[in-house]
């Protein structure tokens, strides 16, 4: 059993993979807490897809792919915030338009390259075994930024998430922190980009936290347990892919889905799930 657990880690690339998954899991738990409970799932997906444009431009220009993704994600987050405030179309329509445009731009640029297919696949579905030491360092640095930000301004983020109207009356710069929440999601997406891949990042933002929220009722504990669940699923998925020879990030997501279903089965049978709140009355 111990051998079965440790054998993969005789390889440097597997140790790096586990490390980057640890960093990613912590960020997915913390940022996922806001994404799930503020209903930002579509924004998270849009931000992930939009990074492809930045990745492609950086690829062609020979710049850092992570930096390109970060710039694209930040611009998209600002764009989403801006449309949410001013658009005449609904916010999700605007988000849908922006991210499809950015994703298409990325594919068009990458399709000009002869080695188009493998490169594209590695960003879209993740390439955890190809993660370099520099990738781990980059993800860890961004993760530290996100965690410090949440630690420093947790009360402001909570007030704005819970009740933006009243937050503004108590002197919280509500608009600023609504943008900051989106920027946080953008940075989280870049942390997970290389390991998980564009189309599956959202699953890691949503599934572990949703699982924790089935049996916990306060945001800090949901975030912490969400991060633990994310890492457990990530490690299990990594092993599964090592021994069964399947793609890593889809394996991780499938494990996470299985855990969610299992917890849902237990909590709904025991009636631990939160009762639907009464709408009115005493």
């Amino acid at each position, binding site marked *: 059993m111990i051998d079965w657990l440790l054998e993969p880690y005789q390889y440097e690339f597997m140790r790096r993979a586990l490390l980057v998954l640890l960093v990613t899991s912590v960020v997915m738990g913390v940022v996922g807490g806001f994404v799930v409970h503020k209903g930002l799932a579509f924004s998270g997906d849009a931000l992930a897809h939009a990074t492809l444009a930045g990745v492609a431009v950086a690829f062609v220009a020979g710049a850092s792919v992570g930096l390109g993704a970060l710039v694209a994600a930040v611009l998209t987050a600002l764009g989403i915030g801006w449309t949410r405030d001013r658009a005449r179309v609904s916010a999700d329509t605007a988000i849908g338009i922006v991210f499809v445009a950015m994703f298409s731009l990325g594919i068009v640029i990458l399709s000009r390259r002869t080695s188009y297919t493998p490169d594209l696949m590695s960003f879209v579905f993740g390439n955890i075994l190809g993660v370099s030491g520099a990738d781990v360092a980059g993800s860890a640095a961004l993760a530290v930024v996100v965690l410090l930000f949440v*630690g*420093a301004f947790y009360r402001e983020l909570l007030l704005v998430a819970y009740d933006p109207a009243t*937050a503004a009356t*108590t002197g919280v710069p509500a608009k600023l922190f609504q943008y900051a929440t989106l920027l946080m999601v953008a940075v989280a997406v870049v942390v997970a980009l290389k390991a998980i891949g564009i189309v599956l990042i959202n699953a890691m933002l949503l599934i572990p936290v949703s699982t924790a929220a089935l049996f916990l009722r306060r945001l800090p504990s949901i975030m912490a347990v969400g991060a633990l669940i994310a890492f457990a699923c990530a490690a299990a998925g990594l092993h599964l892919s090592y021994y069964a020879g399947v793609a890593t990030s889809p394996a991780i997501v499938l494990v996470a889905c299985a855990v969610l279903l299992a917890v849902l089965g237990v909590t709904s049978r025991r009636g631990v799930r939160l009762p639907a*709140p009464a709408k009115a*009355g005493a």
Partner: protein
Amino acid sequence: MALESRHVPDRAPLAEHHHADTALEVRHLTAGHPGMPPAIDDVSLRVPVGEIVGLIGPNGAGKSTLFKASLGLIHPARGEVLAFGRPVRDSRAEIAYMPQVEEVDWEFPVSVLDVVMMGRYQGPRPFLGWSRADRAAALAALGRVGLAPYAGRQAGQLSGGQRRRILIARSIARGARLLLLDEPFAGLDAAVQHDLLALMDDLASEGRSILIATHDLSCVANSCDQAICLNRRVVAAGQPKNVLTEAILTATFERHLLAIPQAMDIVRIADDEHLETHEQQVPR
């Protein structure tokens, strides 16, 4: 509501007009969205210390604009708003706002105590979180509204009446002396309304001043020291029995309302049949 359960204000109305006994003073206020006709035009009103003032008017009368200006969230085009004699922007800690209950995300994973502590926010304290004093004040406020046993519960598990109490506790925890309540009675049954009114009356007796925006005319008639009828301008202001008359309500709502002055706890909007048959119909 039964007669003996009615809530008759017994605090002496304050006649004098200086800062010491004025919680909120709105002077010739004109405000609204930029580029639109002003939502309120030349509005002047006063909330005396220790009184409950009911603000009534139709949808779009400018109640929320008046609230926003009173909270310092919008710049008036003309006029000014003073809280305890100072501009509202300088007295944020003195004023607490209670939003309509459905504006709050009750599914959010926060405990009742978490919500009440939010009222204690006074500015950033990076990495420090809430202080012991914040926690103590929040627990005391929860005790004040009778919800101390529920501190650890998820806020969304509580009933409609209890949710109002959570939000009122948040205002109390803030230490605010002026409370602006937006539609606190909506969707509550008569018994729960009565309990909430009794709580407000206690808070007023302690010297807190309360401005309530509401569509519930019977609550204003029964429990407010003053009523203000707003429809872009102040139509009338004064004691409820003098203000909630058929003529004034008709002028305020721009359609005919049927008031029953002797009881004052049943006021209802006349339906079309009344409009056609009532002798004293006032043409629009």
